[in-house]
């Protein structure tokens, strides 16, 4: 069974968010980058668990420049067998999806996993685009994933509960909370990751469908209005008359 896991780098959750060059670029100064949590905790770990169960290999694919290599090594340290980096600085999801789809196609993978979204762009777009580009079924927002023979069986988030779904392989799956638990890489994994193959690919150019024209920080939040613990009815009054949410 061949698994392909899409890995993005993302700024650590506690990073200060600031922009440079007239608010057109994310200011990376002093920012610690991590593997996007949905990609790491759920998609990658579940792929490794399924490989341990069924045999096969786990390859990661990342679209990005050389500054992505540390997070790719982290994914290899957690247990992926090898990695592909498509050397480009994409401006939109369609470019990312097109390049991933090209790798997925040439590699002949059975299951292509990605996190449900990245914590910087929050787009939730790439998985479905990859599925469409490859003309494959797509299981979105999956909270569990099993493979039986040539069939993927999953639960996925739906309104008011979980849908139980299945699709014949190959399949594209986006991973949400519940699919797996975080794995901390051990020293052996970290050492092994240094020598695992990381293939760098120069992609063909793809027209951009969209691009961020400008970033903006939200207006500063006003001070929190404190209410005495003995006067909850005052809070209710404010919620009704001032905030108008009751």
């Amino acid at each position, binding site marked *: 069974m061949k698994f392909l896991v899409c890995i993005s780098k993302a700024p650590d*959750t*506690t990073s200060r*968010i600031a922009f440079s060059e007239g608010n057109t670029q994310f200011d990376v100064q002093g920012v610690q980058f991590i593997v996007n*949590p949905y990609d790491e*905790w759920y998609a990658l770990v579940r792929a490794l668990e399924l490989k341990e169960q069924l045999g096969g290999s786990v390859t990661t694919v990342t679209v990005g420049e050389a500054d992505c290599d540390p997070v790719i090594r982290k994914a290899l340290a957690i247990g992926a067998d090898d990695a592909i980096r498509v050397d480009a600085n994409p401006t939109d*999801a*369609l470019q990312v999806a097109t390049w991933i789809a090209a790798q997925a196609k040439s590699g002949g993978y059975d299951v292509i996993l990605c996190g449900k979204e990245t*914590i910087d*762009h*929050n787009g*939730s*777009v790439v*998985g*479905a*685009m990859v599925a*469409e580009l490859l003309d*494959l*079924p*797509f299981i*979105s*927002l999956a*909270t569990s994933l099993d493979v039986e023979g040539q069939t993927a069986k999953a*639960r996925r988030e*739906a*309104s*008011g*509960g*979980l*849908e*139980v*779904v*299945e*699709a014949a392989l190959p399949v594209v799956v986006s991973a*949400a*909370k519940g699919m797996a638990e975080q794995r901390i890489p051990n020293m052996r994994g970290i050492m092994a990751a240094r020598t695992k193959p990381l293939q760098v690919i120069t992609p063909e150019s793809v*027209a*951009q*469908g*969209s*691009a*961020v*024209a400008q*970033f*903006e*920080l939200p207006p500063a*939040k*006003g001070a*929190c*209005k*404190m*209410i005495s*613990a003995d006067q*909850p009815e005052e*809070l209710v009054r*404010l*919620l*009704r008359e001032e*905030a108008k*949410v*009751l």
Partner: protein
Amino acid sequence: MNCLAFVPTKQGQATKAGLEAISYAARQGANVTALVTGPLTGDGGTGSAGASKVLHVAEHLQDEGQIARVVAAAAASTGAVLVVAPHDHVGRAVAPRVAVRLKAGMVPGVTGPAEGGTFRRNVFSGKAMAHVQVHTEVQVVTTTPNAFGVDAHGEAAAVETFVADAGPARLKLTGFESSSEDGSVPLPEAVRVVSAGRGLKGPEHWGIVEDLAKALGATTACSRPVSDMGWRPHHEHVGQTGITIRPDLYIAAGISGAIQHLAGVNQSKVIVAINTDPEAPFFKAADYGIVGDAFEVLPKLTAAVQNLG
């Protein structure tokens, strides 16, 4: 400008998120055609929200790959230059496929109308906004639920049967595990949410959270430690690695307000924090705060809400 809106339905009626997508497009002056698949009662409420016409596909399609084929065909046949869908669990799987089929630029999760050719959306888990320019003539956007509201004009839309090749169903639905046995609104759609964390000290104390939620007509949620410890189910976990919500009112009791939690709730319109620790970071992100013990404050708050009548 012709717009095609993909509108999910539930029991024959358009979902609120689907109606918001229609109203979003109609307010920008678009002539909105709604596309609905499966059971539909009347116009499903779409006309009142701003749609002039409904294209109805009788088959209840559940594979979003099939839905995307039908949506793309309907967009082409109506000459739509804007395709909208709600940024919910269905729209998120449909819209990117439609964008690929139409070779259209896409903006997911918009929070504002198109202005000067750009769409506003939240990025960095709500800590910033981006203005996104689309470079293609046909544009696909998904609308953030509970960001726009639904218009009510009172005119029903004409319903026409639409026939298009949806291709084979490759994703099969074999079951459903309900998580809202009590009939409460699912979290991503909830307008009011009452949430609690480790400060509640154990799952046996959740009655006071549920009582307040019931009084408010709210849905219950929890912090990550609470779902990790198994006190509450995973689907209630709001925050960075759980689900992101955007209710009108978010009440958090016994949650310190770690940045990972705030990332999932900071787009709420009004936030109330209740915590014994006056230094809890949640008070910096909240609009209203009460320093106090959730075990005392929540029952009093419930009584005060009930007294509103």
